C-alpha cells in the first residue's frame, strides 16, 4: 500500500474514534432499554467540559475524565425525565440535544478559536513498527488505544458477566426481569448514565485530540451518526468499531479531497458522511436488524400499582 492510503487509513481510525466512543455509549444505553437521542448534545457538553478542564488545569487526562462525567450528568437528566417522570424517550432525547448543544455553544462562546492542551500521537514501541498495522493503528494517541480496550471490555461485560446479563434482560423484557427480582429502573439509570459517560468521552476526544481547540458546533452531527451506527452494528461493540472507522474514513477522505483542491464543490463533499449514514441504515435493515434490537427499547415501564 502506498503512503497516501496508509495515512488515510490512520486518519480514518483517528476521526472514527470519537464516533466509536459515542456509539459504544449508546449501545450500552439502548441495551438497558433506554433510547437516548441526546447523543449529539452529550458529545458537545463533553467536548466543552473536557476542553475547559484541560485549559484551566493544564491536564488533558483530567479533561478527558471530566468530559465523561459531564456526559453522564447530562444523560442523568434524560434518565430523570424518562424513568422518574415517565416522559417520552424520543422527545426527551431531542430536548437533550437542543439543550446540550445550546449549553456548549453558550458557555463556549468566549473560548471560540482558543487552543488548549491535548493529546498527541504516542507510538507504541514495537507495535508501531509492524508493517501496515503499525502506522495505521499504533501511532495514534493514548485515547485511541483506550478505545481499543473499551471495545472488548464492553463486549465481555455485556456477554459474559452477571451484571451485563442483568442489564440486557432489563432491556429485553423488563416485566420478566422485575419478576426475577431485578431493579429495572435502577439498571436503566446505570445504563443511561454509563452510556452518557462513554458518549461524553467521545466529545472529549474531539476537543482534546482531534482539534485541540474550541469551535461552536464542534460535533457537527457526529452524535447522530453514532445513533445510526448502533443500528448498523446490531447493538454489538465489535461491529461498532468497524462502522466508526468506515465513517472516519469517509470524513478523512473528504478532507483530503478538499485539501487536494478538487473541482468538486466542498458542500457536495461534506454531504458524504450523512448520505452514507442513510445508505448504511438501508443496508442494515436488509440483514434483519429488528431481531438484534432490545425488545423493550424506548418503551417506558408503568409504575406498578
Amino acid at each position, binding site marked *: 500500500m502506498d503512503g497516501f492510503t496508509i495515512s488515510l487509513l490512520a486518519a480514518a481510525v483517528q476521526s472514527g474514534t470519537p464516533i466509536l466512543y459515542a456509539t459504544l455509549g449508546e449501545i450500552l444505553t439502548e441495551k438497558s432499554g433506554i433510547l437516548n437521542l441526546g447523543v449529539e448534545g452529550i458529545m458537545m457538553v463533553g467536548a466543552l467540559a473536557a476542553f475547559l478542564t484541560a485549559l484551566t488545569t493544564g491536564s488533558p487526562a483530567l479533561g478527558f475524565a471530566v468530559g465523561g462525567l459531564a456526559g453522564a450528568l447530562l444523560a442523568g*437528566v434524560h434518565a430523570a425525565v424518562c424513568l422518574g417522570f415517565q416522559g417520552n424517550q*424520543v422527545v426527551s432525547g431531542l430536548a437533550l440535544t437542543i439543550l*446540550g448543544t*445550546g449549553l456548549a*455553544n*453558550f458557555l463556549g462562546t468566549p473560548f471560540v478559536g482558543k487552543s488548549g492542551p491535548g493529546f498527541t500521537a504516542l507510538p507504541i514501541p514495537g507495535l508501531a513498527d509492524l508493517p501496515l498495522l503499525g502506522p495505521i493503528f499504533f501511532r495514534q494517541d493514548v485515547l485511541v488505544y483506550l478505545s481499543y480496550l473499551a471495545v472488548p471490555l464492553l463486549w465481555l461485560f455485556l456477554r459474559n458477566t452477571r451484571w451485563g446479563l442483568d442489564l440486557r434482560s432489563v432491556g429485553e423484557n423488563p416485566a420478566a426481569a422485575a419478576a426475577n427480582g431485578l431493579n429495572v429502573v435502577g439498571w436503566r439509570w446505570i445504563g443511561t448514565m454509563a452510556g452518557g459517560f462513554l458518549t461524553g468521552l467521545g466529545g472529549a476526544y474531539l476537543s482534546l485530540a482531534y482539534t485541540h481547540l474550541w469551535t461552536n458546533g464542534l460535533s457537527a452531527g457526529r452524535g447522530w451518526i453514532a445513533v445510526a451506527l448502533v443500528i448498523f452494528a446490531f447493538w454489538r461493540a465489535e461491529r461498532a468499531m468497524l462502522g466508526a472507522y468506515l465513517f472516519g474514513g469517509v470524513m478523512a477522505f473528504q478532507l483530503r479531497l478538499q485539501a487536494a483542491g478538487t473541482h468538486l464543490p466542498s458542500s457536495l463533499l461534506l454531504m458524504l458522511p450523512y448520505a452514507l449514514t442513510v445508505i448504511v441504515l438501508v443496508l442494515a435493515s436488509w440483514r434483519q436488524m429488528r431481531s438484534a434490537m432490545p425488545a423493550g427499547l424506548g418503551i417506558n415501564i408503568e409504575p406498578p400499582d
Partner: protein
Amino acid sequence: MAISLRIRKRQTPLKLQSGLVLAGALVLSLALSALLLKLQGKPAGQAMLVIFQGAFGSLWALEDSLIKAVPIFLCSLGVAVAFRLQIWNIGAEGQYALGAVGASWVALSFPSLPWYLLQPLMLAAASVTGGLWGLIPAVLKLRMRTNEIIVTLMLNYIAILFLDYLVYGPWKDPRSFGFPMTRQFDTAAVVSKIGESNLNWGILVCVAAGVIFWIFFRFTRYGYEIKAGGENIRAARYARIPYDYLVMLVMVLSGALAGWAGFLEVSATVNRLEPSIMVGYGYTAIVVAWLARLNPLFIGVASLLLAGLRVGVEQLQLDFQVPAAFGQIMEGLILLTVLAGGFFVNYRFYLGKKD
C-alpha cells in the same frame, strides 16, 4: 408494613390542572435559565425583562415576533401531522430548505410571469420539493424498515448543504461581491406587505393552513384514520386502515407544509435565497408541536411564544452580550420541564401501605 408515597396512573388525564402544570413547568425553566445567567455574572431579572420587552414590548417587536412565528408555525403544523401518526419527522428543517429551493427555482426561472401566476407556482413548487423530501424517509421506512428519526435528520444536513451548494455555485448572484446568495427576486415573486405594516400576507397562509389542519382531522376519513393509527397501530391494522399509505401521506403533507414555510421565508422575508434562512426553525417547530400537544390553535400560540423568545434573545445579545445559544438552552429546558410535568397530569399520588 410501612406507609409510603405511591403513584398510580389516572384513568383520564387531568384537564384543568394541566394548564397549571404547564405554567409551573414554564416558570421552572425560566428560573433555571435565569440562574444560568446569574452564574455568568449577568443581571438575571433584568435580562428576563429584556427578553420579554424585546419580544412583545413594542409594535415593532411584536411584528418581528409575528414574522418569525410564520415559518415556525407552518413547520410545526407539518411535524404535528406526522406526530399524530407517531411518525417521528425530525426533518422539517431540511424540508423547509428544499421548499425554499423549489420556490427560488421558480422565482429565478420565470421572472416575466405576473405575481398572481408566479406566487402560486412558487407555492406549488415548494410543496412538491418539500413533500418529496418528506416522502423519501417514508418510503425507506416502509420498504427498508429504516428508522425515520435518523433518516429525516441526515436529510436535513444534506438539504442544507445542497442549498449551500446552489448559492455558492450555480445560483450565485455574479454581482453579490462574493457573498453566497442568489440575485434579489423580482417584485412579482415577493409576497406583499399588509398595508403600512411590516407584516405580509403570509400570515393568511398560516391561518388557512391551520383551519385546513383542523378540518382535516375533525371531519375527514384520513384524518380520523391517522389519529386512530397513531393511538394503536396494531388495532388500526386490524381494522384495515391503510397504514403504509397513511405514512406516506403524513410525510408528504408534513414536508409540503415545511416547504410552504421555506417559500414564505425566501419570498416574503428575505427576498432571495441565502444560507442565513437556515436558523433552526425546523427544530423549534418540534418543540412547539410537543408543547401544543399537536393542537393547531395551541401551535399558533406556542409558535408566537417561541418566535418571541428568539427575538427577545436577539435583544439580550445586544444589551448584555449574551450568546445567541441562550435561546436554544431555554428551548431545551422548556421542553424538558414540560415533558417531566406531564407526569403530574397523568399520575396521581397517594399514601399507601407497602405490601
